[in-house]
Structures are given as structure tokens and as C-alpha cells.
């Protein structure tokens, strides 16, 4: 369920990056406050473990197809929310760079979808609440199942929202939900079962790793729930603010949801001096021509997409496109030639 660059609009991708970067900085600050030096190598090695663990496949019961570990919730249980969020981010960064899973712009959204929910909702609000007090295998199993499923459902729903807000797919919202949520319910059940299995197994051999709240997980103890809630609230406000600001500046990203709410593409206009000024500035500095602000009052018709798609220009578009591709290939071959000649000169 890695989000891809090609499905994101710059606005949504940028907003998700802002939220993710903010959380990374916040988590690093929290970690530094109560720094346990052992954490640094542990975080790095557990991140590598998640990668390596994903190489080991297993047969999904009842289907015959094979699956592998996701690991977000497991990291949260082993490391506590702050460290786990940083490790999940790192794993996703390496996946984005080396495997191009998702791409660079989508990375912000991916870290958010796969990191925030297990670390700041699933673990503190569900898992820890359920395994409180005397721990038993049954409790751990139940808590893992519920928290992993909840985290994945929220993540999948975020993917849907991000894709729809970007306005690139035609897939209707309800169909998208009907496709994504059940798949991730199944994935969540398997992942939750495995997470519980690992935690139970490890607890029998090295209880300190999963239980010692004063050692490895000192960070997650004491009022973490309150803090997590506050963090989430702040982040929600920031992200919401960013979204609504962008929404007023760039109509087409949120047009879909606005249409749903108001039944028409524009919000009933209120003249706001700030947005007016912003739109003026934007007109003057527009780098991306199609994201210009429609004139106040919504009088102006939506600009045709650039270049206007109509039969008259499509042939020239096709010819020109092929020509440009040809030029790019020639450019590449040229650089290769220059490189070869350069090497010969060195020799």
C-alpha cells in the first residue's frame, strides 16, 4: 500500500511531508530528553532486522500465497513510540531510495500512513491499555490483533484520502474504500497474529526486551498517552491548517471533497484580504501555471488544462512529444560519447 508519487498532487504530497518532518523532529527531541545511549545501536539494528525479516516469507493460512512481516507495531512494542517512529521512517526512506517503493514525494505520506497510526494510536491508546497489569499470552494476542488492525485500517483509509484529494484517480470513493479496507483487514489480522506470536516467544526467553518499561522503553512510560494525544491534536491542526490554506489557494486538489460538501465546486465566496493578497502574490510568482487561483467570486471559468486537450492540437502534441523524446535520447547518447572520448584522453 505504498503511496506512489504519480498518484499525488504536489499539495497533498507537500502537506504530508510537512506533517511527517514535524513528527520526526518532535520524536528526536523527545528521545534526546531522556536519552538512553543504548538506543542508538538498538534502533539501527532493529531497523535492519525489519528489512532482513521481510526476506523470510511464510504461507498465509487458507490462501496459499506468501506474505511477510510489516513490523510497524512490533517496533512500537519493542522501542516505544518515539524511537519506533524514527526507525519506521528510516526503513521507508531506504525502501524509497533503493527500491523506489513509493518515490520521494510519496515518502512523506508513506511514513505518515505506516508510522503515525501504529506509534501514536495503536501502541499507546490500544496495545498498552489492553495489556495493562498482569500480562498473559491471551491479553497480548488480543491487544496485538486489535491494535494492528486499527493501525492498518487507519493507514489504508489515509491512502484513500490522499489519493482522492490529489484528484488523479477516477475510482469512486466508495469503491476505493470497499477495495482497500477489507484487504487491509485481512493483512492486519495476519500481521497482528504474527506480532503477538513474536512478542510472546521473545517474552519467554528474554522478558526484559518486551517488558522492561524502565530499560529500553523508558521513553514510552508515564503519561505517554496524554502526550501522544496532544501531539496528535497539534499535528492534526497543523496539517488541517496546511490543507485548508492550500485548499483556498489551489482549488483543484480539494475540489472533490468540496463538491461533496457543498454540492458545487466552489465554496460560497467570502472575500478574505489574506487570501486575496496571497492570490495576487501567487499570480505574480506562479511557477506552476495550472495551480493558479481563480479570480475572486468564482466568476472565471476553470482554465483549460495546459495545453488544452482538443483534437486540433493533439496531433501536434503527439508529433512534438515523439520529437522531444528523440532529442532526449540523442542528448543521452551524446553525453555517453563525451564520456568515452574523455576517458580516452585520460588514457
Amino acid at each position, binding site marked *: 500500500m505504498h503511496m506512489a508519487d*504519480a498518484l499525488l498532487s504536489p499539495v497533498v504530497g507537500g502537506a504530508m511531508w510537512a506533517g511527517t518532518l514535524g513528527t520526526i523532529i518532535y520524536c528526536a527531541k523527545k528521545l534526546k530528553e531522556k536519552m538512553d545511549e543504548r538506543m542508538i545501536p538498538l534502533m539501527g539494528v532493529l*531497523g535492519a532486522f525489519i528489512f532482513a525479516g521481510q526476506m523470510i*516469507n511464510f504461507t498465509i493460512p487458507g490462501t496459499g500465497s506468501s506474505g511477510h512481516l510489516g513490523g510497524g507495531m512490533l517496533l512500537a512494542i519493542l522501542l516505544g513510540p518515539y524511537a519506533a517512529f524514527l526507525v519506521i521512517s528510516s526503513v521507508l526512506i531506504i525502501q524509497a531510495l533503493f527500491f523506489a517503493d513509493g518515490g520521494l514525494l510519496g515518502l512523506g505520506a508513506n511514513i505518515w500512513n505506516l508510522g503515525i497510526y501504529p506509534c501514536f494510536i495503536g501502541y499507546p491508546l490500544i496495545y498498552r491499555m489492553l495489556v495493562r497489569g498482569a500480562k498473559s499470552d491471551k491479553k497480548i494476542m488480543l491487544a496485538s490483533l486489535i491494535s494492528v488492525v486499527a493501525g492498518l485500517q487507519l493507514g489504508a483509509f489515509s491512502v484513500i484520502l490522499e489519493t482522492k484529494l490529489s484528484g488523479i484517480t477516477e475510482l469512486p470513493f466508495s469503491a476505493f474504500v470497499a477495495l482497500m479496507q477489507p484487504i487491509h483487514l485481512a493483512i492486519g489480522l*495476519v500481521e497482528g497474529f504474527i506480532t503477538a506470536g*513474536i512478542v510472546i516467544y521473545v517474552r519467554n526467553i528474554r522478558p526484559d526486551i518486551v517488558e522492561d518499561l524502565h530499560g529500553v522503553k523508558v521513553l514510552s512510560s508515564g503519561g505517554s498517552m496524554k502526550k501522544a494525544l496532544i501531539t496528535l491534536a497539534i499535528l492534526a491542526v497543523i496539517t488541517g491548517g496546511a490543507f485548508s490554506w492550500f485548499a483556498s489557494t489551489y482549488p483543484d486538489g480539494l475540489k472533490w471533497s468540496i463538491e461533496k460538501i457543498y454540492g458545487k465546486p466552489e465554496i460560497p465566496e467570502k472575500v478574505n484580504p489574506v487570501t486575496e493578497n496571497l492570490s495576487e502574490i501567487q499570480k505574480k510568482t506562479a511557477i506552476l501555471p495550472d495551480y493558479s487561483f481563480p479570480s475572486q467570486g468564482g466568476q472565471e471559468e476553470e482554465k483549460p488544462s*495546459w495545453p488544452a*486537450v482538443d483534437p486540433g492540437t493533439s496531433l501536434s502534441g503527439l508529433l512534438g512529444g515523439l520529437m522531444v523524446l528523440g532529442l532526449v535520447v540523442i542528448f543521452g547518447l551524446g553525453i555517453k560519447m563525451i564520456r568515452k572520448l574523455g576517458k580516452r584522453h585520460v588514457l
Partner: protein
Amino acid sequence: MSFDLEYFNLGYLDTLSYKNTFVHRLDPRIKILVSFTFIFFVVSFPKYELSGLMPFFIYPVFLLTAGDIPLRAIAKKVLFISPFAIFVGIFNPLFDTDVLITIFGIPVSGGWISFISIIVKFILTVSTALLLIAVTSFPGICEALERLKLPGIFVVQLLFLYRYLFVLLEETLKILRAREAKSFGKKGKEVKTFIRIISVLLLRSVDRAERIYRAMLSRGFRGEIRVLKTHRLRLQDVFFAAFSVIIFYIFRNFNLVSFIGENLKSSFR
């Protein structure tokens, strides 16, 4: 297992990243920022845009050729992935059936155009991400992240992760080989067995982290690791950045493709 091996073939991109060419020598910060700008410009095109995206191929092609990266290494990886982009995009032709243009008498619906546009954007952005790491070593990226003011703890554990990735991958390969040797067919891949195997790997990893920590202490670790800074911003870095951004701007704002196309069409007449 061949897919997994292909997928986890990290080492190859890592080897490529230590070449010494013009693009490899550029400041990693510049390369990260220019690549982000590039992706930003590419995804900013509206969903029916196709021809305007073509000139943007010049950036990955430049990184590929000037960085002396084999085309196959990148193309294979681009082809390997992307089920999600295709999964989401393939519905466009089903739901958006208005005929937008007719090419040589064949009507083409808006859905197909937006689907192909998604695929082209996908190829552009994904190949750029792969090429970024192929022309910048991972420690280089980490150095850049630190100098772009990301938190020190984050960067240091990222470096740790990368370093131990290769160690743990080899250990896992040994475990997998043992599993293959001791089981037949589908046996040995049950969830129950999997949980035991991965738990043992986890325990070993934690042990390793503890050993590493003790080794670090004995070498004078006091809770801080300095990231090696090897790059300095030079004139050619600034030049490269400015030149790239100007070119992206021109490609995005001036319709070069239809200009060339119009001229071609009129010269045919």
C-alpha cells in the same frame, strides 16, 4: 526466492554510488533538492497531460548517462514494482470514458490518457529516486540530511541501519538456506514456524545491538556520533542547481512540445 533476491539486491546500487563522475561529485544536498524540485514539477501537471511530460525525461537521462549508470540496472527495478500505481490508475479507463481526442481516427478516452499519464509520471519519479541513490552514496545522503538540519539522532540511527542491513541480510540468507535444506516443498513455511524463525532472528539482532553498544563504549562513545562531512558547496553545485531549476521551469511553463509539433506539421505540408 529469486524475486526476493532481486528485490533485496541493495549491494549493486551501493557499488554504483561510489563511482567518480561529475554527478557523483556534486554536493548531495544539491542532488536531493534538485530531485525533489524535479518530482514536484512533474506531479504538478494536470491529470490529462502527456506531451508536456516528455521533455522532463532529460533529467533522469542526464543522471543516467553522466553518472555512467547502466540503463538495465534502473529499468529492471522500475519494471519490477508499481502494482499500486497501476492498481489505482487502471480504473481511470473504466470510469472516465469521454472521448477526448482522436488519433488517426481512433477515439481515445480521457481515462486512457490519464492512465498513461500516471504511468509516465511513475516512470519519471521512480527512476529519479533510484538514480539519486545510484549517483549519491548512502552516507552522502545521510550527510546531506544532517546538513539540511534533520535531527542528529535520526541521521545516526539511519547510518546504523544501513551499515547493519548487509550484516543481517547475510545472516537471514543463512537462516533461509537452513530452512530450505531442512524442509520439503511448502513445509517449513507455516506461520508457526515463521514466528519461531523470525523471533530467533530478533533475539540475535538484539544481542548484536548490545555487543555493538559495548564495543562502542570501549572505543570512547559518549552518546554522540559525528557524521563525516566530505562535501563543500562549490561553484559547479550552484551552477547545476540553478541551471536545472531554470530548465524545469521552462519545460513546465512553455509548451515546447506543441511548438515543435506545430512546426513539424507545417513543414510536412
